């Protein structure tokens, strides 16, 4: 039986930009997370960071640059690329292995010093076939959205409702920088980006730094009265060429299945009380509902129509405002985990949902049309 692992403390910062430099921001969140856990960096077993070179303001080998403020100097450690929830999973597995009792997990993304999101995502394209076409994440998402609407009869209004919900939820989130009360018509009337996607249906570019202290069961009970347990996790990678994939039946199903099995979840829409999912494009939230098993195939539009995923609904999704409101590309997965942690501990302030949250789902994705997914289940 693997060891249980808990999150014992969290810290984060966000926004669109700031006058603080990278080092000061990173230092601040790491110090805050360590102080909240009451543990010094010298006592932390290992450090796992997450950052991407191409998003990193012109610096290669992100870990070389951020090792100092991440509190990792002369500590055992490693770095995950692309998806910060990879770092959470890897940190948890290091503790599960019995080699460490604690792990500091840090995600770093200073979006204000980075190029536009799609300048970066164009670099995911293979240089010979895709890149000359200009295929980037938004273009791939637009193809996926068109297929989604055509195949299931999902309407543009239903997709826009995700942005309506999330940008309204974001009003309570001090880290979110795109927020407000919009109607579906206003969302659809915002600037066209790649048909049929409009500007407010596409996530912005943001800053975000996140730090979490993980601990084994024994250590967690020493460090906090209210540990939040990592009950399950799963990742899955899809084929690269988008023409080779069924864009409506992606690997999120597999990633979720792995996390559900580990957490003993058989009826996700009943056993999960809150979800923080990564929806860089509004319609994707509806598609992810289906692949997470919150509803049947093609039923995502109905779920939003019924208000189930509203902040006051039975299964609130993205009460933080999600990625549409605040999108530090690499660290965004860890911010989802932090929000779920706060909701479970009833520390989410204005964003606190009305229902009791014992079990929460956290999701991260990157790559064209959701090529890679990570799902983590947190519980009280």
């Amino acid at each position, binding site marked *: 039986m693997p060891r249980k692992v808990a999150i014992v403390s969290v810290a984060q910062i966000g926004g669109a930009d700031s006058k603080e430099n990278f080092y000061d921001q990173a230092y601040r969140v790491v110090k805050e997370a360590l102080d909240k856990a009451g543990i010094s960096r010298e006592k932390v077993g290992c450090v796992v960071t997450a950052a991407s070179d191409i998003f990193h303001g012109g610096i290669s*080998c992100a870990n070389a640059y951020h090792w100092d403020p991440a509190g990792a100097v002369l500590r055992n450690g490693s770095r995950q690329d*692309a998806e910060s929830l990879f770092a959470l999973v890897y940190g948890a597995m290091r503790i599960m292995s019995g080699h460490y009792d604690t792990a500091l997990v840090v995600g770093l993304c200073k979006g204000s010093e980075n190029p536009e999101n799609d300048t970066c995502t164009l670099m995911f394209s293979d240089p010979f076939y895709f890149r000359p076409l200009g295929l980037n994440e938004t273009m791939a998402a637009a193809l996926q959205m068109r297929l989604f609407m055509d195949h299931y009869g999902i309407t543009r209004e239903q997709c826009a409702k995700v942005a309506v919900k999330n940008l309204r939820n974001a009003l309570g989130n001090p880290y979110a920088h795109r927020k407000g009360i919009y109607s579906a018509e206003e969302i659809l009337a915002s600037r066209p980006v790649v048909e049929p996607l409009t500007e407010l249906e596409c996530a912005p570019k943001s800053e975000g730094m996140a730090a979490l202290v993980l601990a084994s069961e024994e250590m967690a009970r020493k460090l906090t009265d209210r540990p939040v347990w990592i009950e399950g996790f799963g990742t899955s990678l899809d*084929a690269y060429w988008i023409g080779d994939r069924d864009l409506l039946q992606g690997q999120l199903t597999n990633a979720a299945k792995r996390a559900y099995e580990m957490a003993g979840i058989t009826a996700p829409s009943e056993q999960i009380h809150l979800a923080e999912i990564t929806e860089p494009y509004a319609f994707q939230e509806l598609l992810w509902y289906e692949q997470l098993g919150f509803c049947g195939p093609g039923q995502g539009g109905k779920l939003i129509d019924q208000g189930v995923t509203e902040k006051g609904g039975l299964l609130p999704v993205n009460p933080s405002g999600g990625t549409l409101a605040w999108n530090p590309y690499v660290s965004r997965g860890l911010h989802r985990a932090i929000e779920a942690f706060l909701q479970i501990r009833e520390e989410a302030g204005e964003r606190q949902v009305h229902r009791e949250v014992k079990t929460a789902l956290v999701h991260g994705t990157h790559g064209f049309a959701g*090529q890679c997914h990570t799902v983590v289940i947190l519980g009280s």
Partner: protein
Amino acid sequence: MARAVAVVGVGQTHHGRRMDVSYPDLVREAVVRVFEDTGLSPKDVDGVVSGTMPSMMEGVALTHLYFAEAMQAVGKPILKTETCGSTGVSIAHTAFYWVASGMAEVVLAVGHEKMYEGDSQATMTTVLDPFYQRYFLAGAPGVFSMQSQLWATRYKIPQDKIRDAAAFISVTHHQSAFDNPYAHIKMKVTMEDVKNSRIIVYPIRLLDVCPNSDGACAVIFASEKVAKRLGRKVAWVKGVGYRGDEQFFGDSDKVVWQSAIEAAKQAYDQAGIKDPLKELDVAEVYNPFTYQEMIFYECFGFCEFGKAPDLVLRGIFSREGELPVCPSGGVLCTNPIGATGLIRVAEAAMQVTGRAGEHQVPGAKLALAHAMGGIDQFNGVMILGSEL
């Protein structure tokens, strides 16, 4: 008690200037070979760890996305580990902890780099911070040159002696590469050739420096249960260690180099190694520069500080010596960076399982694998042994 983990098989590409294959096909070549070596198939794999140098090296970001098919990773759990030059050993560490955690029985680790597609020294320069250090620490040789001079000065080692010892290392490794079917640079080199080769950054000359290589390496890590079921000799992971120093080059000592010392110590403590020179049978040290290799000998406790050149010239680290280092020809002859650390792990595993062929160290039972990265900043170590 933590779960035991073994390296059950390895696959390498023929490293070199591989204009005959695309980048994904290069990866595929290594992955196909690890399945041939182990008799396992992709359906046996519970997870895949991918890693490379930064995106700028070949102009493709998040390469695990691009190599999904080549790594046989479609539908598999995935992690993407990158720690600069130490990536290869960090990939191995990730696979090790994954199996040790009980979350997988079999993990495929894949490291890769196609350096002829890009400009490696331009990329290395961007590892430095853009404001203070990038302008004067261009590329890797500048950093290693300063480090070697600091070392020679600190211990008052005459320039002639470090020159001779470094040339001796170059000759030895270039000779060994002839016995490694996968090595990139295979050329006969004499002491005079090294000393007369073109200067890169004093005291480093062309034959003191590794090449750019295209290459990939795949290694399968497995639990004790699977390892025993395979019914073949496997290499057990006896210890892992990793440390990183500060980013700014002047902030930490690169001679009595704490990240190297502590990474090795962590791994030795786990493996119960007290006298590495005596107990280790072979070491695959990450040696892109001849001079730096000697600093690693000292930091890893193979000899006292300042004494490595004497031991090198006495042949202690040669193929027939007390502790053969890099019988594969090492990084000096083959350096596809994202794969390089994993190749060290693969070579160490081949040695302790008696499968190293022409460059086998007879009777090797305990081996060290190492990789270094960043601005002389990161060191990762893995100890592999023939016995559980």
